[in-house]
């Protein structure tokens, strides 16, 4: 855990600025990155027992980003907390570096690559299993997208994690209500989601994913039940923090011009709403 005195909202604001500026350097998945920015800030500052000096410590807590397209938010957090030189974010999509649209281990602090959805719950399960075999007390967190829950492999891994009674495994669902091109409930409805996880043998709680006090409460007690893996359904807003990007189907992947990105940063800081950006927004 980093300095508990960190001002979390200010930190989250800077992380979101990084996300918007990365979108001006070849585009990125803005909507999903903004929805989980507070979650990642909270996890890295209040929950995870990890630090830049401990990235290879076998006793550290692990965080796996299973919905890898939100990696700009993670890079923003890693840059702000000293894992990653913030200047490297300037090399987004450069062939000279490894900062691209999905995470990879060439960036210090990233535990594993992802991008193909539905993979890292199983990988995290393997890590959690080894920690138990070693008698370790560290915990393994996995950030899942709600759209990602369409993948059958997630539910397969849920069955196995429950069967193995891995109570050192914690899934965090960024429940922003959207998948790439649609609202989750309109395409492949997930609700009642808590009941689904519980039926699969997990213990579940829900929290406002943008409220640090609520997240403190949610993350203060793990495992939720001994002998069961835990899941936190973090209720979030796609594009959170920038009103003109919030809660819209067409605000997922975006390429901004540098001027547009700066206008959005102003909007993020509470300034006037940026001009509607039709041309630069691409749904992929």
């Amino acid at each position, binding site marked *: 855990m980093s300095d508990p005195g960190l001002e979390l909202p200010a930190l989250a604001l800077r992380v979101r600025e990084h996300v918007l500026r990365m979108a001006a350097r070849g585009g990125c998945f803005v909507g999903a990155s903004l929805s989980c920015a507070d979650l990642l800030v909270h996890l890295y500052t209040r929950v995870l027992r990890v630090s830049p000096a401990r990235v290879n410590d076998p006793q550290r807590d692990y965080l796996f980003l299973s919905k890898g397209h939100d990696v700009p938010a993670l890079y923003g957090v890693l840059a702000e907390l000293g894992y990653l030189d913030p200047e490297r974010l300037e090399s987004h999509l450069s062939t000279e570096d490894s900062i691209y649209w999905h995470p990879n281990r060439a960036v210090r602090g990233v535990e*594993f690559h992802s991008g193909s959805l539905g*993979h890292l719950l199983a990988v*995290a399960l393997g890590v959690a299993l080894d920690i138990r075999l070693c008698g370790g007390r560290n915990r393994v967190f996995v950030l899942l997208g709600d759209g990602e829950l369409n993948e059958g492999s997630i539910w397969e*891994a849920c069955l*196995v994690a429950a069967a193995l009674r891995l109570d050192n495994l914690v899934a965090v669902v960024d429940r922003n209500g959207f998948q790439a091109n649609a609202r989750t409930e309109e395409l492949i409805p997930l609700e009642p989601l808590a009941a689904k996880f519980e039926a699969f043998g997990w213990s579940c709680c829900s929290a406002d994913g943008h409220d640090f006090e609520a997240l403190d409460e949610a993350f203060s007690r793990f495992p939720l039940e001994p002998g069961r893996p835990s899941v936190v359904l973090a209720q979030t807003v796609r594009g959170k923090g920038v009103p003109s990007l919030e809660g819209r189907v067409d605000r997922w992947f975006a390429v901004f011009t540098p001027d547009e990105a700066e206008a959005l940063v102003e909007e993020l800081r509470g300034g006037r709403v940026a001009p509607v950006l039709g041309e630069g927004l691409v749904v992929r």
Partner: protein
Amino acid sequence: MTSGSYESALAAIAAERRDIIVMTAENRAPIRHLPALLGERFVDVGICEQTLVGAAAGLALRGRTPVAHALAAFLVMRAYEFIRTDVGIGRLPVKLVGYVPGFLSEGNGPTHQAIEDVALMRGIPGMQVFCPADEAELVAGLPAILASPQPCYVRYNALPPVCEHPAPFSIGRAECVAEGDGVAILTYGLMLREALRARAILEARHVPVQVLNLRMLKPLDEPAVLAAARGTELLVTLEDHLLTGGLHSIVAELLVRSGVRARLLALGLEERWFRPAPLPAVLRHEGLSGARVAERILETLIRPLPFHSGSSPCPIE
């Protein structure tokens, strides 16, 4: 647990090496005594091949060497993207053991036929492919496979010994089972037995036959294959696999890349699944029993065409 079996060899290595974790997607037949021996180091994830491979990658991230077992068809195809993406991109030392590959699926039918497994696995950068000819070779190769830092696909074959294997196992090295300068039969896995049967028939007809047991299709023993191409009049690839992407493809690629001309007869499965039946019947029906292999080689040798005949019947007349 039978002495000299795969299971006992794996148990012996796992007793020495605490990093070994034996995993299965509920296919326990060849490792049924290991849960009692390994305790928590034996992990059965149920019929969840994707989770099997993903979890193996996670264990490998922590420094373990997982040995993951499942039916070959489901291991390499149901979980293919997990192998490619988690194990392959991660370059993790996960060992994947596919049961009943190729003709060993016998009467199961096409759903269970892994006849493209070599093609799929060799297409993953860094992945080794080990295709033992019998259980003795499987056991002989196991220590080196488990010691390698690379991922490996093991085309499981625990049939009784086909022949003596005096050459020690070494990664990427083939075994020359018989010498001869007329025809070279290149093969792997259970087809080695048919190659030796074919050789006996051909030698009786005064056709000298070299038999090369490749053992590993990746890395391939390229010098051995090129020497066979240069030293004989006809190169035969024999496999219980689709021609596409298997040994035939591998050899053809190597010859072209090396600028070596050779007459090549490809014996394997061409664009279809095989008729489900007990192994001897499959071999006869598919024209790949030792006797049929010998006949097809003789048919090819008497043809005047100097270069590449494809598989029987000859398409170029």
